[in-house]
């Protein structure tokens, strides 16, 4: 799976550079997020700008990351969801769970506040 990352103001941003986040590749995202929290990072932002399609496994990987954040007293937020991807969060009520921002800039600002 193609993931890129950068750190901005103490927030680790993971860019999912894939068109699909599904049962084929979501385990890698899950592991990458898990490792960040285990390594002591507190603020993780997953940016889904390039993701055109997400399935239940992709959603599950993000839920797993969210729970990992809680158990490590950290935060996991999301940014740049395409409209159809966002509608999957709404269908599964996960939009009530995650903090979702239109861009990485707005999300990083929110981590600081």
């Amino acid at each position, binding site marked *: 799976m193609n993931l890129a990352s950068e750190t901005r103001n103490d927030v680790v941003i993971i860019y999912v550079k894939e068109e699909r986040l*599904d049962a*084929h590749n979501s385990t890698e995202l899950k592991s990458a997020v898990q490792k960040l929290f285990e390594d002591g990072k507190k603020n993780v932002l997953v940016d889904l700008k390039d993701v055109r399609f997400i*399935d239940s496994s992709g959603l*599950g990987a993000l839920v797993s990351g969210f*729970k990992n954040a809680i158990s490590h007293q950290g935060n996991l937020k999301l940014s740049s969801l395409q409209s159809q991807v966002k509608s999957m969060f709404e269908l*599964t009520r996960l939009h009530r769970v995650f903090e979702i921002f239109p861009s990485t800039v707005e999300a990083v600002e929110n981590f600081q506040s």
Partner: protein
Amino acid sequence: MGNTIEVDIKVPNKTRYLSLIGKIGEDIARELERYSGDKEVLAYHLNLVLTEAMVNAIKHAGPKEPEKLVRIVITLHHDDLTIRVYDDGQGFDINTIPAPNFEELEDRGRGIFLIRTLMDSVAYRKNCKENMLEMKKKLS
């Protein structure tokens, strides 16, 4: 488009083929001439139900054998779409799968919920030879 199209495809039961199968669903949605709804939304939904159904077939397959195949038959007759996903594994009864508990944050258990939400009807049949998940939707 003519009255009936049928796509009958077999792929190895590996997740790397999810994208291929999903894209067939998207292409069918975009080819519908008389569909009155949003074709891009329908394309996503067909991609999703095909992906979820195939993942279920892979997950519930029997002993690991690289030669196992998943067979998918997509039939469009007038406005009636039927998707059948066959596997020769141990199978699972979707009727025993509860709806997700939205208050509990589970990693899993949303696949069948999504299929049930997006399709008009879902049935599961099992015989001694194979299992079949049948999903229907009226496209008008």
